[in-house]
Structure formats: C-alpha cells, structure tokens
C-alpha cells in the first residue's frame, strides 16, 4: 500500500496484543514475502519492474537482511522497540518533507551502471507511450541497499519506502519502475530474514497463517481503496499513524515494563 507495507503497522499491533517483539518481527517478515510476491507478480507481467536492477541490488539486500535478522535474535527487546520507533519517526520525517518531484531522464550513465546494463523502458498508461530510462550511481545504490536490507531483516519490515528513496534519489529510476522494482527485491530480502528466524524457532505457524491471509486480503483491498482516495488524504493519514506508532514504540522502549 503506497510503498508503505503492512509491517510498520502490524508489528506495533501484535506487540500491543501482548506478543513478544521478536515473534512479531518474525511473523511480520513471513507475511512480507506474501504481500511482496502477490503484488510483484502483477507488476512484473505489466513490464513495469526492471528485473536487472532488482537482481543486481538483491545481492546486497539479502546479505544486509541476514546480518539484520541475526542482530535481532541477539538483541534485548528494549533496543528493538527503540530501533523500530526511530525508523518509524524517520519515515514520518521523509513523508513530511517529500514533495511530488518530477522525474526527468538522465542523459549520461556512469560506466559501472552501463556495464551492469541498468536501463530499460516501460509502458506508461497515463501518457500512452513507452518511456526509456537509464539508471545511474549503481555503486552508491548498492551500498545503500545493504543498509536497507539490514533494516528489513532487523525489524521484519519490507523497508520499501527506503528502497524507493534509494531508487528515486540515487539511481534516478522513474517512480513507477522504482516502486515496482523495490517490491520485487522485498520478497527475497524477506526470505533471507525469515530463514534466520525459522532457524531460531521464532516463527509460530499457528499465528503466522491468519496474519499471512490477513495481509494478503488487506493489500488486495488496500490497492483498490487507494485508487479512489485522494493522495493528500492518504498522506495525512499515514503521517498521523507513523507519528503515533513511532512515539509509542520509543516510549515503550525507554520506559515500558519489558
């Protein structure tokens, strides 16, 4: 939903219902595989996703996710609440300052991005034409993706907003390609994180099953609802949700009886 996955809302909700945060993170990351794969399947077939960009960057996000998830297993609960709250507040800040910027194609690609064949075209339905584009700064994008993967594994979220930001600002991908490619990467990244939580016995299948089905239905309805809602209304809604959840998680990390 709007580049903002279910994880950021799901984990605070599950912990609020009394679930230990590590279990909530583990369940959330399994459900992220479902939502990512579900929506990516449609985007890929619509030729919006750039598979090469995705598969190049995946090399970095999965390594980040493996490290992140291993850190989560070892870290005390309190730190995870704090980290989660800080990431929520950072997303809030990004959403607050982010303006709808106009995308314009870059004429010159750096040599490394060119060698990686990071370019493509996609059919833009609104404009009724095929848009050609080239990605740039692959090396910087790749190293930042290591960090995005780390946060995804650490907190059990897709970290889609962060990946989109890297695609947009560093690699200059067109908005549609950027969100759909991030979606593809999220699936394998979440799988890497899931493997660590599974090995540590943190995945509770009886609870994961209804959550997976819930997020699948939710993301299906969400995309349909989103089309009808006004962009500004959605943005304002998320600003409030992120601020409330972020502050609440930080509060519990600092003073909660954990």
């Amino acid at each position: 939903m709007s580049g903002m996955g279910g994880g950021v809302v799901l984990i605070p909700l599950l912990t609020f219902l009394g679930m230990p945060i590590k279990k909530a993170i583990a369940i959330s990351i399994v459900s992220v595989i479902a939502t990512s794969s579900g929506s990516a399947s449609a985007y890929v077939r619509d030729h919006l996703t750039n598979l090469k960009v995705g598969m190049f960057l995946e090399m970095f996000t999965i390594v980040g996710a493996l490290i992140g998830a291993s850190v989560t297993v070892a870290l005390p609960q309190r730190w995870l609440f704090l980290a989660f709250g800080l990431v929520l507040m950072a997303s809030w800040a990004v959403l607050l300052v982010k303006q709808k910027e106009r995308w314009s194609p870059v004429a010159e690609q750096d040599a490394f991005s060119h060698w990686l064949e990071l370019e493509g075209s996609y059919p833009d339905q609104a404009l009724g034409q095929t848009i050609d584009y080239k990605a740039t700064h692959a090396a910087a994008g790749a190293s930042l993706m290591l960090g995005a993967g780390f946060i995804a594994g650490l907190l059990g979220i897709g970290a889609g907003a962060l990946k989109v930001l890297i695609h947009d600002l560093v690699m200059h991908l067109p908005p549609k390609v950027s969100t759909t490619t991030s979606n593809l990467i999220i699936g394998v990244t979440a799988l890497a994180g899931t493997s660590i939580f599974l090995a540590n016995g943190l995945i509770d299948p009886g609870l994961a099953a209804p959550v997976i089905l819930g997020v699948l239905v939710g993301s299906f309805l969400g995309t349909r609802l989103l089309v009808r809602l006004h962009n500004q209304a959605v943005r304002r809604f998320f600003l409030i949700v992120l601020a409330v959840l972020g502050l609440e998680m930080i509060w519990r990390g600092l003073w909660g009886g954990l």
Partner: protein
Amino acid sequence: MIAMDILVGYILQIGVILCAIFLVAGLLWSWLVTGSPGLHYSLTGSNLFQFWLSDIRQLRAGHLQPELLVNIGIALLMMTPYVRVLVSTIYFAFAERNLKYTFFTGFVFAVLTYSLFLR
C-alpha cells in the same frame, strides 16, 4: 526480457495462490473440528529443507491434519522467491546467455541456499 517478465510473474502468482489455498484449508479444517480457527503449536528451530522433509514424512505416514496443511502453506510461501531466483539464474544462463547476470542471480541463489540450510 519480455518472456522472463511473464515467467517470473507467474511463478510468484502461483506460489502465493497455492500458499493461500493451503492456509485457508488448514484453518478452515481446524475450525470445523475444534470450533476455533486458531492453531496452537510451535516449530522448534529448523530450516526450510528439514521443514519440507518432516512435512513429506508426515504425509507419507498418512498423518494429515490441519497443522500439516498450514506448514505446507508456509513452506510453499518460502519456496516462492527461492524458485523465482533459481529460474532467473537458469534463464540468464541458457536463454539470455548473459554471464554477468547468471553470476549475480547465482550468487543470490547460493546465499539463500546457505541461509535456508542454517540451523
């Protein structure tokens, strides 16, 4: 790349649909038998391959129960991106004959295989 788009798209879709079918079946079954859709059991630490092995062993022994359906659903979900990466590697190697991307996807596949074998 058009053929690959379609291939990858269908792998992801089929994986998610199969997973959902098994999860719904497992939860519905448990609901009909016990009167509550909640299942209460936990997995001890295992990896995806042990997970599959124990599922298959139970199937062959005829121990079909709601928990098994849910386990298969979750295992199928985990297989979905994994198979997607494997098929991409094969596609880059044999259809596109693109050495660079065969290596990249092969690396992702190797790291995932390693992590899914972890215990």
